């Protein structure tokens, strides 16, 4: 890093620590002018821009950073946060997962944050889809009912005597009622009570839904970020109290897949 860039950056860091994010941002910008190829400066500025809700600018900085340093974990984390704020949940999830994978690879302590971010994105994406599905269902209901009413009116127009008209009218009323009942059954107005999520999907340490389960020598699985932060402190198996090291942990691929599949259909389970 050039001396000028370094000076601007250090002053930027100081301002950032004090909570003066706008000033920090402009100092990081000056550092970037002095040294435009330094990837660290872009994540610094992205962080300041995250604090001031400049989502589009965060996205731009993170993309520049990743162009210079493709394996940058922080850039992915910030990018995911900005995309989440922009309600672009598919991309937010993609970058959170990539950031998480980098944490696993490098033993980065931010793994807890990335795990939380993955769950947050999955939940938001599911909520968004649910909303869309409900909206589409109610649009369809309206459309179908309108067609049925049209059909009824056409038929009614062919008759003039009151008795027949009443008969036709009643018949259609019943059909329309049945149709509404079918839609109600498919999309109840009141949410049915949610069951508890399956116990196999819940981490016994954080009590959270698992994102990246790993299995111990005894065959018990935990969320990777939870068990790793415990083993860094005390290298003992939580159940048997036998020696257990982070390097002994293995990914539980099938359980991971089962957790993913379950959340795909039941995004609410993130906040059970």
């Amino acid at each position, binding site marked *: 890093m050039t001396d000028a860039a370094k000076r601007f950056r250090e002053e930027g860091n100081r301002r950032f620590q004090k909570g003066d994010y706008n000033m920090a941002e402009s100092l990081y910008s000056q550092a970037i002018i002095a040294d435009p190829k330094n990837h660290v400066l872009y994540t610094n500025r992205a962080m300041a821009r995250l604090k001031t809700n400049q989502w589009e600018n965060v996205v731009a900085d993170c993309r520049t950073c990743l162009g210079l340093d493709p394996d940058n974990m922080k850039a992915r984390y910030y990018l995911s946060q900005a995309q989440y704020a922009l309600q672009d949940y598919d991309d937010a999830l993609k970058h959170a997962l990539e950031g998480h994978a980098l944490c696993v690879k490098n033993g980065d302590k931010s793994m*807890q944050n990335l795990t*939380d971010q993955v769950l947050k994105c999955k939940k938001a994406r599911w909520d968004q889809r649910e909303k869309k599905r409900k909206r589409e269902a109610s649009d369809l209901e309206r459309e179908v009912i309108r067609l049925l009413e049209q059909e009824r009116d056409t038929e009614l127009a062919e008759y003039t005597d009151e008795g027949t008209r009443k008969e036709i009218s009643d018949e259609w009323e019943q059909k329309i009622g049945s149709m509404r009942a079918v839609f109600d059954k498919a999309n109840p107005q009141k949410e049915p009570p949610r069951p508890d999520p399956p116990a196999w999907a819940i981490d016994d*340490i954080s009590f959270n839904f698992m994102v990246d389960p790993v299995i111990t020598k005894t065959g018990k699985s935990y969320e990777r970020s*939870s068990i790793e*932060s*415990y083993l860094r*402190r*005390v290298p003992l198996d939580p159940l048997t*109290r036998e020696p257990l090291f982070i390097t002994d942990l293995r990914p539980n691929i099938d359980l991971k897949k089962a957790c993913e599949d379950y959340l795909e259909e039941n995004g609410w389970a993130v906040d059970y």
Partner: protein
Amino acid sequence: MAGTFATKRLGKELAKIHESLPPGIELVSADNFEEWFLDIRVLDSNPLYLNQIYRLKFKFSAQYPIEPPEVVFVKLADRPIPIHPHIYSNGIICLDLLGQQGWSPVQNVQSICMSLQSMLTGNSKNERPAGDEDFVRGNRLRPKDINFYYHDNDV
């Protein structure tokens, strides 16, 4: 101030506690995710603890359950400190599962209460730990930072 990791997990523990607790354990208060109070009593007729209720104070750090909670007995007019060779008269408990090394993150508030219940139930000695007076007078350490010597874990 407890962090989100601790907060989330304690929130879920509390929801379960509100649903049901094993006999002899009652929640007194859990107004925040830093300090909870629970009452326990033994379920058998051990004469040392007969008809007595004891008050426990739990303190959680932001790292809970990676780090153990701090658990002590609290003395009130109707809540004495139970007599036990591993419980000091100021309420500090000498139990390996509450220490930095003995703690496991799969333990929880309820399981701690149950361990303490059985620790009392299984005791027949009407005595305090050795050096209780000196310890109570001189100790300035937080319970979890004390390196107890677990000399007789079968008590």
